[in-house]
């Protein structure tokens, strides 16, 4: 059955069983589930009526045993420690050493720090993966069909919806936290390796049957105000290190000096300034990629010139937006994840820099997340096709190596979604006829800015009019694709086997696309 972005969704994918029995549907288009109802799935939690002094257990192994973790269960993790994370590998090693098998990992994201999990997949111990990001060895083994069930890939908002709706039930959540007290009140500041916020882990703490907080810095009770509330936590474990602080946050998200990136960023800022939403009190999010991040720098003079301010900025926070706020140009920063030391330092000291939960950020099934009030979002892409569909998950070889993250959430929510990407990367045409995998549907993407020109989604007549009025040149996206192919040649289609190795969920829980097992190329 073909879905609303023209992708064939096979029966094999539609038949995948969700925990709550919900039947998968193919993607139906933007806003499909609006106004419908969901019944939230509650966890089964233990009563702690008799006072105890402490929930601290001596080791992760003890916590795994105390939680009653057994074959077939689902465990969860968050990804605030990014490439510096030790928690996933430490916990999974204990689970495997205890001989527990048939485990599903439901993480907010996974990265190259988690290469050891690839081996557990090959051994058939880890049989399910539900995540946003999948990279490195894990992406490789999954793409080669080694995981027993198809991986389920979701946006950050889509994951919260899936947990709340009961598509996935978390048996035990393991939450790494920079600080915790003996009752599990956990914060992301004041420890050996701070990550700034714990936004993605909040839904795990509220919906998992058992919750374990793992920290390397125990602090006196009560560790307030907490990101993870002790009332939701069963056990606390102290370890030597939860992660490598140097990799948790990069020293600084470096501002690009690449003239191509800067030119594209300047054009994005000019396009934003030509739309009706660029007025006093506008709201904004950028991705952390080179050209997207550089947009901050070009917005500043335009804001000063017009005498306008941004009321709030959200998202993965980096130094440049904090810098803009210090100059008095941003009202509030609402933070779901920190990408650099500058952002973590800022939330530590700045009263107008707030932590929010992943649900508040991007959940499509709550009563209105921040993304629904967003004016502009500027995002990157691996590929964009002539229907404006975006791919951020599969490489040109068809192997899983990315993450939808907040891309589909902000793209659907924002009034104006701008993708900024060079026309070609090496021999790869970024603007192509058909993306390898659809991760953000074209009906949510409004403007595509490249180094060879700008294209506007023909559905957005209002933006076309605004750009025409401002004298900003734009071309049909087909022209950009043809220009790209004239430079690098027309790519051959990738060769796939039949097996579905991953399901790309739209944020509303319908199926946007599937990824199949790759066929090795033979010359």
């Amino acid at each position, binding site marked *: 059955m073909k879905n609303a972005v023209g992708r064939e969704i096979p029966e094999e994918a539609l038949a995948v069983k969700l925990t709550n029995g919900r039947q998968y549907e193919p993607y139906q288009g933007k806003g499909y589930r609006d106004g419908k109802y969901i019944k939230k799935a509650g966890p089964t939690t233990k009563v702690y009526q008799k006072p105890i002094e402490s929930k601290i257990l001596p080791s992760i192994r003890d916590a795994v045993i105390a939680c009653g973790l057994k074959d077939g269960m689902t465990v969860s993790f968050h990804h605030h420690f990014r490439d510096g994370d030790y928690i996933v590998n430490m916990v999974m090693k204990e689970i495997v050493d205890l001989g527990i098998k048939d485990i599903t990992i439901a993480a907010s994201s996974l990265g190259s720090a988690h290469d050891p999990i690839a081996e557990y997949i090959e051994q058939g111990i880890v049989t399910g993966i539900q995540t946003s990001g999948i990279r490195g060895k894990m992406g490789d083994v999954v793409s080669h069909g080694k995981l027993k069930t198809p991986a389920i890939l979701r946006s950050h908002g889509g994951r919260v919806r899936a947990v709340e709706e009961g598509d996935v039930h978390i048996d035990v959540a393991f939450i790494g936290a920079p600080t915790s007290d003996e009752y599990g009140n956990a914060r992301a500041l004041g420890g050996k390796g701070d990550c700034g916020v714990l936004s993605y882990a909040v839904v795990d703490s509220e919906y998992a049957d058992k919750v374990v907080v793992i920290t390397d810095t125990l602090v006196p009770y009560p560790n307030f105000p907490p990101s993870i509330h002790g009332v939701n936590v069963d056990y606390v474990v102290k370890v030597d290190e939860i992660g490598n602080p140097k990799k948790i946050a990069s020293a600084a998200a470096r501002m690009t000096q690449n003239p191509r990136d800067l030119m594209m960023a300047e054009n994005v800022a000019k396009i934003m300034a030509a739309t009706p939403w660029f007025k006093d009190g506008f709201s904004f999010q950028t991705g952390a990629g080179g050209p997207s991040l550089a947009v901050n720098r070009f917005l500043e003079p335009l804001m000063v010139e017009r005498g306008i301010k941004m009321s709030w900025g959200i998202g993965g926070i980096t130094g440049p937006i904090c810098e803009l706020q210090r100059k008095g140009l941003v009202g509030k920063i609402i933070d779901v994840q920190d990408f650099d030391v500058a952002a973590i330092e800022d939330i530590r000291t700045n009263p107008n820099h707030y932590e929010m939960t992943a649900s508040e950020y991007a959940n499509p099934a709550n009563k209105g997340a921040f993304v629904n009030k967003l004016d502009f979002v500027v995002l990157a892409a691996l590929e964009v096709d002539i229907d404006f569909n975006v791919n951020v998950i599969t490489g040109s*070889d068809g192997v899983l190596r990315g993450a939808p993250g907040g891309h589909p959430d902000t793209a659907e929510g924002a009034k104006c979604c701008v993708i900024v990407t060079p026309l070609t990367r*090496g021999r790869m045409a970024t603007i192509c006829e058909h993306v390898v995998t659809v991760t953000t549907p074209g009906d949510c993407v409004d403007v595509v800015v490249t180094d060879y020109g700008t294209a506007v989604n023909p559905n957005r007549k209002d933006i076309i009019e605004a750009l025409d009025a401002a004298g900003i040149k734009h071309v049909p996206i087909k022209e950009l694709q043809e220009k790209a192919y004239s430079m690098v040649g027309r790519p051959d289609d990738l060769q796939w086997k039949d097996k579905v190795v991953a399901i790309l969920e739209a944020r509303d829980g319908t199926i946007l696309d599937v990824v199949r097992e790759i066929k090795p190329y033979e010359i």
Partner: protein
Amino acid sequence: MELKAVGTAGTLESSDVMITLEPTTSGGIVFDSFESSVINQYGRQIKAEVLASLERLGVKNAKVIVNDHGALDCTIKARVECAFYRGCQCDMDGKFDWGGVIR
């Protein structure tokens, strides 16, 4: 003009291709190794470009090693031609066949 020794041209940089030609006396054109960072989408075209260039240069027999990092067709042609002339070990004194066998 014929291949006398191993001729190599190109680098392992991004957007370049390293081509190595080794003379053989029979067996036609044989790819000893063929690697590319974009093999899934452009492997067929890279191979065709290398074979067409060798044919133009009149190379009937050779072992060929291709190590590509996303080179465009013009680069592939240039590297094959250069590897060939290096392998021929003769002083051309600048008299290359521009626009003829060299495209």
